[in-house]
């Protein structure tokens, strides 16, 4: 369990860094030429939040991802069987 939390948090941290960089770049790119500092600061703040949230909830997100990855193919298989049972 503890290992899972660590793995989830580590994966979350990686995704969080990437998401944070994206948010920072997006805000910087939309800054007006005469006042770029404010947008960069906002971008940095949003980026840090993205990193923190992904890291904090990474393990929960991973758990849901695994649940989906297992249930989705099963659901598709069941739907296919049900469809093939129906009279044409």
């Amino acid at each position, binding site marked *: 369990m503890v290992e899972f939390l660590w793995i989830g948090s580590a994966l979350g941290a990686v995704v969080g860094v990437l998401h944070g960089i994206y948010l920072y770049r997006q805000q910087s790119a939309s800054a007006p030429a005469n006042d770029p500092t404010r947008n960069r600061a906002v971008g940095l703040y949003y980026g840090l939040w993205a990193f923190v949230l992904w890291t904090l909830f990474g393990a929960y*997100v991973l758990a849901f991802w695994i649940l989906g990855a297992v249930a989705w193919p099963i659901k598709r298989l069941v739907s296919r069987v049900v469809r093939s049972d129906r009279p044409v």
Partner: protein
Amino acid sequence: MELRSINRVGIIGAGVAGLATAKTLRAAGYDCTIFERAKRLGGVWADGYSNFGVQVQKELYQFPDWPLPAGTPNFTPGPIFQKYLEDYADRFQIRSCLHIGERVTALMPRADGAPGWTISTERDGATQQADFDLAVVATGLYSNTPNLPNIPGQEIFQGDVLHISQLKNRAPLTGKRVAVVGYGKSATDAALEAAAVADEVHLIFREAHWPVPRNLAGILPFKWGMLSRMTGALITPYVHPSPVARWLHSLGKPLVWIFWRVVELLLYVQCGLGTKIAKGQNLVPSTLVHIDCFGESTMVPRSELYKSIRSGRIVAHRTEIAAFTRDGVNLRDGDSLAVNCVVFGTGWNCDYGFLSGEASRILGSDDDGFYLYRHILHPDLPNLFFIGRASTFLNILTYCLQARWLAELIGARFALPGRDSMLAEIQQLKDWKRAWMPFSGARGARLLLHMLNYHDELLRDFGANPLRKRGALAPLKELFVPYQPDDYRAVVAGDWEAAEGRALAKPAVADVAAKD
């Protein structure tokens, strides 16, 4: 486009979109004239069916810069909302621009060769013409043309056949055996009206749709589950998806899949969609919720609807009418219903009959409606704009932002891309919607849950920051707190730069015509 010398603007329609456009353009100094064929302003709110009203919470359906008065009931009733629109017209001095009771009969390019349009109108048999530098079509998606299915045998039916628009009160339903056709908002409203006074009520629909409960799990207003950026990221990616959305819908797909299945499970339990209806059917839709909610019949039903179906007060039939008989209707599933009143809650059609033949040809005659650049303009129809041809969960806000976009465009605060780029963009939009969005006659105008992406696009065009949440917790709010009209107050009022504490230097005035 020739937008450098705009002065006179002709607006067709005095509904929400027309009023928002007039208010925004008047504030920017343009001379506006609004033509409205009805006897009073308000568009769909001027004259609704019995007990009609707004289907979303009141804070979601109001002008960002003119909130509903304190004490307004939630899910604002139609007549109160119409009065609110009258007050809006007074507050922003729009009334002097209004030509009420004047029906537009034709919209043609100006004969004198100048850029702009000639609007022909008719009032009490007298016709008039006026030239405008720019025309705005703000007649919305639901013009006054009822959509009535053509069902055989109607001429021999002895009872009443009504479209929902004819149902002004409960009198035509009192003591009758009523069949209501449809499964959207107006049909379910009609069924509930009938349930209050009729002897027997049947609701007939071909396909069930996922409802949006007013309160999720009976507690949380639906906006918390639908109007946040987090939910926005989990729906089918927008036509121009962000890298985050692309990642989420590729590697993160199982996460998206499980999220929507949990939503379906919650809706199934809360609304009792497993309830057995006629012929052993139930109310579970066959389309996945995140696709179905982009269809024609997305609705926030009144809480009594499912209770009435469960109790049998409203008998639901998942089929369609095959034919009318003398004393009722035969259903496609083999049942026959003895009814003496049939109400079609099958919606309205768009009516652009006033457009010139050439304009109609350019817009096309696709079954799913025409597609526009930014849902506002077609590059081959210069100086003609459509405000209100976009269907979202926050329509008023969307129309106000479209009007702001238009004011910024004609004020040369930003420039349009070239014709070919706009046509390519329209084609992209068409391909994207047709790839996954359920068919409907107004698919070209449907955005619904994609409204945040659309609003972001409009704001980015004219240089406003699309992230509108404020305060130290803004990043958290961006993710989880629903967006609503008051988040855009400064943008709609046109003073977002001051509100953001930015230096007020404007970008260099762009030569719009030259870029075209």
